C-alpha cells in the first residue's frame, strides 16, 4: 500500500486545500498520473500517484484544508485491505457522487392522448384552474365537443347552486317576495371600466379577498356576561349582529350586480352558511340589523335544526343579501369562501385562538380571530372593503357600541 501525500512546494506553504479529486475510489492509476488538485499558497498544482495500482481510499473530501505532508489517499492492489490505523475518514458520500452536469433542456413534443383528458380551449383551462373545476367532469359544447369558456362558467354556477331544498308549500308562494331595492347605481363609467379591466369577461364574479385580525377578548367577556343573564345565545349571533350593523354604514357590500346596474338592498338579510350532511346551505335571517341578538340567536338555532332535517323552505333559503360563514368550530384560521350569487360579498370568520399580539409594545396573549371578506371586485374596491372590515372589527372589539339593547 502506498500513501498519497500533499507535498510542500515551498517553505511558506503550511496547508493546501483539496479542490478536485481527478480519480475516484477503486479507479486505476498509473505512477506519475495526477490524482488530485491542491490549492496551495497562490498556486494550484496536481499531486501525482507515487505508484501504479488502484486508488483504494480517499481520506479527505473536496474542500478540506490539509497540512502539507499529510496522507490524503491510499493506492494499492484491487481489494487490498485498508490499514485500520488511518486518521479521520470522510464518509464516501462527501466525495461522491460528482455534481450532475446541467444540460440544456431537450424540448420534446408530447402528444396528449385525448381520451380521459378533456379537450378545452386555453381560456377554458385557465378559468378551470382558477375555479378549481375538474375539466374531465365538464361537458364541452364547443366545436367537436371542445370545452369553452361558457362551459366552465356553467360548471362554476352549478357547483354554487347545489343546495338541498324542501318542496315549496303552495301557501307561502305568494308571500315570497324579493328584498326591496334602496337605490341603484348605474354600472358604467369608471366603475364599469374597472370592472372590464379587472375581469377577463365582465359577466363573471371577480372574487377578491381581504382579511383582518380581531381581538375577541371584549366580545367573549360580553358573551359570558349575557349568557349568565339570559341563557344560551350563540356567539355567532353576536358576530352576525355586528356585521349587520356594519353593513348599514357600508351598504355597497349589501348589493347585487344586475346587468349594467349595481343594486343596493335596503333590507339587510344575512345568509348564514350551515354545514349539513348534504353539503352547505345558506338560510337567511331577514332584517338582521333590526333583530336583537336573542332573536338572531333563536333564528340561527331554528334554521340550523331545519337544515339538519332538510326542512328548510325555499323562502328561508332565498333573499339573502350578504352571507356570513363561520368556520371557527372547524378550527379553520383563514379561508376565502365563495361569494353566494347574486350577492356581492361574503364574510368568513376564523377560529378564535389565543395568539401572542403586541399591544402598546407589550407582547400579550389575546383571543384572536381572523375575518376574511371576499367581495366582487366589479362592484367595489379593496379600500372600501378594508373600511368595512375595520368597522366590523371596531364593533366586535367594543361590543357595548352595538349591543346596548340586547
Amino acid at each position, binding site marked *: 500500500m502506498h500513501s498519497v501525500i500533499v507535498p510542500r512546494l515551498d517553505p511558506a506553504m503550511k496547508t493546501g486545500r483539496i479542490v478536485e479529486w481527478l480519480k475516484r475510489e477503486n479507479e486505476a492509476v498509473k505512477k506519475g498520473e495526477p490524482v488530485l488538485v491542491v490549492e496551495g499558497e497562490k498556486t*494550484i498544482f496536481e499531486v501525482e500517484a507515487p505508484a501504479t495500482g488502484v486508488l483504494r481510499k480517499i481520506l479527505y473530501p473536496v474542500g478540506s484544508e490539509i497540512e502539507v505532508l499529510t496522507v490524503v489517499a491510499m493506492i494499492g492492489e484491487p481489494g487490498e485491505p485498508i490499514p485500520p490505523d488511518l486518521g479521520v475518514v470522510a464518509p464516501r458520500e462527501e466525495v461522491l457522487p*460528482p455534481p450532475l452536469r446541467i444540460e440544456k433542456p431537450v424540448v420534446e413534443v408530447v402528444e396528449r392522448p385525448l381520451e380521459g383528458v378533456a379537450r378545452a380551449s386555453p381560456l377554458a383551462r385557465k378559468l378551470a384552474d382558477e375555479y378549481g373545476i375538474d375539466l374531465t367532469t365538464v361537458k364541452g359544447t364547443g366545436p367537436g365537443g371542445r370545452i369553452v369558456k361558457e362551459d366552465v362558467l356553467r360548471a362554476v354556477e352549478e357547483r354554487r347552486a347545489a343546495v338541498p331544498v324542501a318542496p315549496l308549500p303552495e301557501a307561502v308562494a305568494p308571500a315570497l317576495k324579493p328584498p326591496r331595492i334602496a337605490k341603484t347605481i348605474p354600472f358604467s363609467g369608471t366603475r364599469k371600466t374597472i370592472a372590464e379591466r379587472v375581469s377577463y369577461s365582465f359577466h363573471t364574479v371577480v372574487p377578491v379577498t381581504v382579511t383582518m385580525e380581531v381581538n375577541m377578548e371584549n366580545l367573549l367577556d360580553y358573551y359570558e356576561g349575557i349568557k349568565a343573564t339570559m341563557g344560551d345565545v350563540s356567539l355567532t349571533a353576536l358576530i352576525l349582529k355586528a356585521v349587520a350593523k356594519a353593513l348599514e354604514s357600508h351598504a355597497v357590500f349589501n348589493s347585487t350586480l344586475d346587468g349594467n346596474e349595481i343594486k343596493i338592498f335596503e333590507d339587510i338579510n344575512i345568509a348564514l352558511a350551515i354545514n349539513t350532511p348534504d353539503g352547505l346551505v345558506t338560510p337567511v335571517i331577514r332584517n338582521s340589523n333590526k333583530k336583537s341578538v336573542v332573536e338572531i340567536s333563536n333564528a340561527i338555532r331554528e334554521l340550523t335544526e331545519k337544515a339538519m332535517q332538510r326542512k328548510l323552505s325555499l323562502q328561508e333559503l332565498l333573499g339573502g343579501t350578504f352571507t356570513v360563514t363561520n368556520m371557527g368550530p372547524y378550527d379553520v384560521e383563514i379561508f376565502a369562501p365563495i361569494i353566494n350569487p347574486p350577492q356581492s360579498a361574503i364574510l368568513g370568520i376564523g377560529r378564535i385562538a389565543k395568539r401572542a399580539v403586541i399591544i402598546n409594545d407589550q407582547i400579550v396573549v389575546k383571543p384572536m380571530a381572523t375575518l376574511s371578506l371576499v367581495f366582487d371586485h366589479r362592484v367595489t374596491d379593496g379600500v372600501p372593503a378594508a373600511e368595512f372590515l375595520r368597522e366590523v372589527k371596531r364593533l366586535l372589539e367594543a361590543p357595548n357600541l352595538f349591543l346596548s339593547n340586547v
Partner: protein
Amino acid sequence: MEMWRLLDIEYRDPYKNMAVDEALLIAVERNIAPNTVRFWRNLNALVIGRSQSLEEEVILEACEKHGTSVVRRFTGGGAVYQDHGNLNWTIVSRRDHPLAKVKEILEVFKVFSSPILEGIKALGIRAEFKPPNSIFVDDKKISGMAAYVKRESVLCHGTLLVKTDLNILTSVLKSVKTKVTTLQRELDTQISMAHIKRAIITGFNSMYDVKVKRVKLSREEIGIIKRLYKNKYATEEWNAWADNHPSSDPPKR
C-alpha cells in the same frame, strides 16, 4: 535564438477566453504545443478564483447592472474585474525549460512576470515585483497573477490594468483588498494596447533571450478549447460550484 509562440487571441466570450488558457496548459503538458505567450482581454467580466464563493466575493446585482459576466478560473487566488482596459497575459512553459526550473514553486511568479515588469518599465513607469504574486507601482497594485503546476508544464497568467474602469471594478467586488492603479493613470496619456504588447515582447527578448512568433492554434488545441468550453467553463455549475456544492468535486472536464 529560441522561438516561443505568440498568441494574440481574445474572444468576446470570457468563458471561451478561459477555456483557451487551460487548453494551452493541457496542450503543452501533452507536448503537442510549444511554450506559449498569450495576450488577451475580456470585454466586461469578473474572474474569480478556483475555489472562491460567488456569495462571498461578488455583488451580483452590480454585475447585472453593468452586464458583467462572472467567470471561475482554474487557478487559485482572488477575484479580479476585467474590461477592455485590462490586458491579460498568459505564459505556458514546459517545466523542464531552464526558466521553469525553480527551487520554490512561488518563484514562477517572479520569473514569468519579469518580461511584463520589463515592459512596464520600458513604458517609463517605476514598477516592481512584490512577492508572492503581484506587480506594484509604489503602493498600488497594477498586476496580479496566478499559476497552475502540472507534472510536465506550468501556466502562469496575470492581469495588467491599462485603463480599466475602476468604478465598476470597485462596485462589483465586495472587497478590494489593495489599492490599484492603471498604466493610463501612471502615464497620464492615451496608450494603445498594441504599444504595450510590443513593449512586453521586447521584454521577452531582453529577459529570456527568447523570440516570439505569431502562430495559430493547432486543430487539436481548438478541439480541447471547444470541449473545455462546452463541458466546463460555459456551464452554470462550474461557475457557481463553490456555492452549490461546497464540499463535493467540481465538474470533471
